């Protein structure tokens, strides 16, 4: 039974996975054209158990197990979205978006524009990102930068259960193709989530912690890393602000730039490969927008330029950690 039925009390804590499920359940109750499709989404509720219980409530016409045909069912969803459905497609590992690029980029993203605004594609792709699960190079990538690069798509990277629920509901109601990336390592993270209906608008960054000395601009699970680093920094007298853009497109440049202007230093944290990725865009936006206020070059911290290795000691050094962020920030602040 979906958690949303549990109660309406104020300070309700649920997990990130539950928040995602609740968003889906509420939207499916509200709108019968919302349906879910993907591999092992029905009885199994996905390998991460994010969707458990949805089949029981909504039946197999709306929670649909597919063959292992990422391109095929993503394409199907594009057509379904054009003609009256609001499909939510589940791509189990973000590494498999490789197989959907043509459907998402050459079809979903362009249909509205190419048709002169006549057809719309209100679909959501939910998928995952994040390493350190010992899953090796083909199951650990964070490839969201590719979609961010493509006009016509919107891209969301929630970092808390609250944001996950509100942003996913907004995504489902959006009339455009939206890609929603969930960090696999965050599914069990708990947080305060209202039981009722609310949305978080796309295009609004959130300041997760205010500070004065340095801005840590972080996405997805890197927000937790930034918050951890901020706590460590506090102990040595550095006040760090943590800013979460939440949606990569539309991008709330203003909030990012304001923060960097205020603190005069910025580090960008993202779990995608560092080169030619999200860190480059955000760093460049800030380097331009806060040009006259920065005391130091914007620092980028993303995944190392290597395929993610399996061996635990190797994998652990490929992504930013509280410790490495702390060191970088300390150095930047000259302490």
């Amino acid at each position, binding site marked *: 039974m979906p958690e949303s039925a549990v109660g309406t009390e104020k300070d309700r804590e649920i997990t990130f996975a539950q928040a995602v499920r609740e968003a889906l359940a509420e939207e499916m109750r509200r709108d019968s054209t919302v349906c879910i499709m993907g591999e092992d989404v029905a009885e199994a509720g996905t390998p991460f158990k994010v969707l458990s219980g949805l089949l029981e409530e909504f039946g197999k016409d709306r929670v649909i197990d597919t063959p292992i045909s990422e391109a095929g069912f993503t394409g199907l969803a594009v057509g379904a979205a*054009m003609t009256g*459905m609001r499909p939510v497609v589940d791509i189990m590992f973000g590494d498999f978006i490789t197989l959907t690029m043509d459907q998402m980029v050459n079809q979903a993203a362009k249909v509205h524009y*190419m048709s002169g605004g006549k057809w719309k594609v209100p679909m959501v792709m939910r998928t995952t990102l994040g390493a350190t699960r010992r899953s090796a190079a083909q199951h650990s990538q964070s490839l969201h930068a590719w979609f961010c690069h493509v006009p016509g798509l919107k891209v969301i990277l929630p970092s808390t259960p609250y944001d996950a629920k509100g942003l996913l509901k907004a995504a489902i109601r959006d009339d455009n193709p939206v890609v929603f990336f969930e960090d696999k390592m965050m599914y069990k993270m708990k947080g305060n989530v209202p039981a009722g209906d609310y949305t978080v608008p796309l295009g609004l960054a959130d300041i997760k912690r205010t500070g004065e000395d340095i801005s840590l601009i972080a996405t997805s699970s890197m927000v937790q890393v930034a918050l951890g680093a901020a706590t460590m920094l506090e102990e040595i007298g550095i006040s760090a602000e943590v800013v979460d853009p939440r949606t990569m497109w539309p991008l709330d440049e203003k909030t990012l730039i304001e923060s960097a202007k205020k603190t005069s230093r910025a580090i960008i944290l993202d779990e995608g490969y560092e080169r030619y990725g999200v860190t480059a865009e955000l760093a460049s936006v800030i380097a331009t927008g806060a040009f006259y206020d920065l005391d130091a070059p914007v620092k980028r911290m993303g995944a190392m330029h290597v395929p993610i290795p399996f061996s635990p000691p190797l994998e652990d050094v490929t992504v930013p950690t509280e410790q490495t962020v702390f060191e970088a920030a300390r150095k930047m602040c000259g302490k």
Partner: protein
Amino acid sequence: MIPSNDNPMTTATETKSSQDVALYLRMYRQMVAIRQFEAQVNDLYTRALMPGLAHLYIGEEAIAVGICEALERSDYITSTHRGHGHCLAKGASPNLMFAELLGKRAGYCKGKGGSMHIADPATGNLGANAIVCGSAGIATGAAFTAKHLKNNRVAVCFFGEGALGQGVLYEVMNLAQLFKLPVIYVCENNSYSEYTHFLETTAGEILLRATAFGLDAEDVDGQDVRAVHTTAKRLIDRARKGDGPGFILCNTYRYHGHHVGDINREYYRSKQEEHSWKTERDPILNLGKWLIEQKLADAPALELVGNELEAEMKKAVEFAVASPYPDVSEVNEDVYA
């Protein structure tokens, strides 16, 4: 659909129902409309009035017409880079099509799509597509909606035999059959994908590639509009009833080059081959002959159809040529809904 103006027929034999007769004549007219449309496209290219390129449907008219005549207006189609015929057969207005081909504001897509992206919700046209096999998912999804919303619609996916090379086709045929979706995959085998013969790129048997996934598959002479229509009707009715997807293999030929600029073709196909298709298997000529044989029309009446449509298309071209380009400020409208 091209309005069928005055009725060109003279006498009708007793054996055909008047409905059938009207259908044959409508299909004749539609095929001629497409051919005349394409002749104007070629002319626009030659006169350097058209930006970019276009892929002419001349020679293949019987497929689009035979199939679209078996569809309701609310049914869906998806089309290809060689899509003018499909769009017209599903009811598109030549004025708005030419305007689109010239990149004008009045075009179906406000000039943003061009020849390969004509789309029109009013006629159920989900869009032509410049990615080979790019619309197979979309058509299947439209059928998914039809089933889910129980709106009784059918979706037809047109594609060239080159699309048989794209794996996604097999993925969606599998999905369509599993979900028993009302979608018909129509393979227009004109023997060539660009400059390469299909036997060089297509192993095994085309029909089996559909039956292997459980689809009801049939092949048909793509130059015989009545045969195409009969087959289409059976599979479309079946799909509409909920009995699942179908596949139609239509053997056909494109008279012109892969695109309007493909003039010297002898390195990949002989003039002799082109000649024999044009003279012996032309869908319009052959239907015309048959109509006359059957005393459903006479030669002057058919000629009149040609003349009328030629005039209509010329007028449509004039409309498009005179029509303004979009304003530069429109460039970043319609990116997001």
